[in-house]
């Protein structure tokens, strides 16, 4: 017995209190030990990495802040021999030219129109991409249908003075189109198909009404001073070209991709030719062609707006790329999906719209955004046809304004251009990742 009680003295009657884990395995120290200094190779790599980060950051901060010049009227503020030290960034230059970088040569007293366009565009865009925002659908309709019109009228001043002849021609065409649809509908009905005439007429009627409205609005004199596109510049041109290209290329691209996979030979051939033609020529050639060659082929006195020519070129060019991206997505959809949709009795457009395209487009979001980002950066090429986009106007001021000639001005200008483009492209890329995460359904690793 005595032996037993002796043993009992060594048996715990209650749980020992849990000790905190060793200080070296928790918190920031533990994390660093586990991830940065786990063995000697990682330790060496970490130290090298930290050294690289240190010298990079030090150089950047030294250039961008410590040796930077923030205020000044001309290059005297940013010349080494005038200020007595080796000047880093010359932010004074960016400050004094900032409004030119944003608006180009847009007349000072009319710049509020650009501001309103930017503001409405930004608010509308934010509204559309924020989930759970109220009235999202209506905002989307506004942004797609009315905002382009509004931007066009605000930026150019509207009042295009369309001839009465074009009004008449347009009215005649629209009546013919409506009658045509009605005729086809009536025939289909007599054949006994369940073609619903009123809904079939609704869509073309809505489109025609929209075009009528657009026609009326651009013809209407709002009393704003006209501003020619040759006066636009800077961020304004970059955004106009990029957004038009992005917005136009997706629907055209989808149609082309469907056309290329169509079983109708004419549609297929037309799509293939279009895509291969536009993909086969460099964008520079397209722009050069639109600005230099096109005027030679037009009768004298007929002059398309240069920016408009460029917009059309960019939109068609990027649509061809988009078509191939979308086609990749369409090919990834198993045949069973098509068959299933057909088995349900869905007609072609419903099959595509409800079953195939939602899956296909979701798959190729990275590819689509890739094309968008590429397009955004390609807008800088418009410089070669004499349009001054953001990079172009910065380059113009850096290279041609003798008042601001200085080595530091030069570097600052290009760094600023790079930063601005990075912000936009990075924003697009983050949104695409957000969309992918939101829409991931079963194909995420």
């Amino acid at each position, binding site marked *: 017995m005595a032996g037993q009680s002796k043993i009992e003295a060594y048996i715990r009657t209650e749980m020992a209190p849990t000790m905190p884990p060793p200080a070296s395995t928790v918190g920031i120290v533990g994390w660093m030990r586990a991830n940065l200094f786990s063995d000697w190779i990682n330790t060496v790599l970490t130290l090298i990495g930290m050294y690289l980060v240190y010298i990079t950051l030090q150089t950047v901060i030294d250039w961008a802040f410590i040796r930077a010049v923030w205020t000044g009227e001309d*290059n005297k503020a940013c010349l*080494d*021999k005038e200020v007595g030290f080796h000047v880093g960034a010359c932010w004074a230059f960016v400050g*004094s*030219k900032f409004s*030119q970088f944003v*608006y*180009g*040569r847009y007349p*000072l007293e009319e710049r509020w129109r650009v501001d309103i366009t930017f503001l409405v565009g930004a608010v509308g865009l934010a509204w559309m991409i924020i989930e759970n925002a109220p009235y999202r659908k209506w905002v989307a309709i506004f942004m797609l249908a009315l905002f382009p019109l509004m931007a066009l009228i605000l930026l150019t001043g509207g009042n295009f003075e369309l001839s009465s002849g074009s009004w008449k021609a347009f009215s005649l065409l629209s009546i013919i189109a409506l009658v045509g649809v009605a005729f086809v509908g009536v025939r289909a009905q007599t054949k006994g198909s369940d073609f619903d005439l009123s809904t079939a007429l609704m869509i073309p009627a809505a489109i025609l009404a929209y075009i009528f409205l657009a026609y009326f609005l651009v013809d209407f004199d709002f009393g704003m001073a006209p501003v*020619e596109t*040759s006066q636009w*510049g800077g961020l304004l041109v970059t955004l106009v070209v990029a957004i038009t290209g992005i917005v136009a290329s997706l629907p055209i691209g989808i149609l082309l991709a469907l056309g290329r996979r169509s079983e109708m030979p004419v549609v297929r051939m037309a799509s293939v030719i279009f895509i291969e033609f536009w993909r086969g*020529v*460099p964008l*520079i*050639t397209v722009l*050069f*062609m639109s*600005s*230099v*060659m096109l*005027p*030679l082929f*037009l009768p*004298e*006195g007929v*002059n398309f707006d*240069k920016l408009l020519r460029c917009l059309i070129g960019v939109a068609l060019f990027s649509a061809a790329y988009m078509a191939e991206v979308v086609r990749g997505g369409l090919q990834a959809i198993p045949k069973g999906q098509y068959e299933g949709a057909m088995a349900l009795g869905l007609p072609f457009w419903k099959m595509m719209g409800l079953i195939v395209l939602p899956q296909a487009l979701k798959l190729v979001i990275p590819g689509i955004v890739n094309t968008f980002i590429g397009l955004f950066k390609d807008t800088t090429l418009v*410089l*070669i*046809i*004499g349009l*001054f986009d953001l990079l*172009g106007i910065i*380059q*113009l*001021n*850096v*290279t*041609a*304004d*003798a*008042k601001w*000639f*200085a*080595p530091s001005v*030069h570097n600052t200008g290009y760094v600023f251009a790079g930063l601005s483009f990075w912000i936009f492209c990075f924003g697009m890329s983050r949104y695409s990742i957000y969309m992918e995460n939101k829409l991931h359904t079963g194909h995420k690793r």
Partner: protein
Amino acid sequence: MKTKILAIAAGAAISMVAAQAASAATLDDIKKKGHVQCGVSQGLAGFSNPDDKGNWTGMDVDVCRALGAAIFGDATKAKYTALSAKERFTALQSGEVDLLSRNTTWTATRDTALGLNFAGVNYYDGQGFMVRKSLGVTSALQLAGAAICTNTGTTTELNVADGFRADKRRYEVVAFEKADEVVQAYDKGRCDVYTTDASGLYSQRLKLANADDHIVLPEIISKEPLGPVVRQGDDQWFNLVKWTMYLMLNAEELGVTSKNVDEMKSSGNPAVKRILGVEGNFGENLGVGNDWGYNIIKQVGNYGEVFDANVGPDTPLGIARGVNALWSKGGIQYAPPIR
């Protein structure tokens, strides 16, 4: 490659279209639309560059402003199209611009084969060299075996080849597409010599880290007379551009400036009276108002004023008049009299 083919095709098309595109009455068109459409460069300091507000200024721009003043009595009645070197002639041919005032060198080919006419010379330029002072070079003739920085595809490259080959000196060309890249390469020491048009040398020098360490050598190895260009076959418009430039030279010669033009109107000198339109109907003969001369001088200034305001010694460029001085002051700027 593609662009090269295109350029050739464009060239062919230009010569085809050239004959028909030369519309007869540019001046009437201009009066109808209410402004002069002017092709300028995409940015060349002192010739066509944006000011703080983004308005175009410069010597080439002032030619257009003078025409606006001559035709409409308002120098602001000129609009500008920025043109790249490649598209400039097509833009003029196709009627997109009425006048090309874009530091374009007057050469035989351009004057004869492209269906264009050069209306005069508003700046006599020539290719020069810049070197580091530390090299100890004082003449371009001492530059044997040098690495030379220049732009690709311009006449400067050919001029260098001509000059160096003539006396069998070795050299190496380091060529870049953009003037900016050339300057950076020169500044970083990738070459010993930087060559381009002398007017450009002065402006590019300001972009160097230490502008004072470099000198522009005295030799000029090419002739680059820069001037405005119009379409061939419209003599009325050609005359107006030509005489607008002559008028500004004559005004400098007679001492008429934008400041004293109002007093000069009552001057007793018949030559002054003629250029200001007090006497004679020279304006009417050109298809504009007789006070065209007064308007040009009042709003734009005489040639000397334009030179000084844009590229002269008091500007950052600080270019001396040199050969661009009046003939009476040792230069070669000479205008036929207005009488």
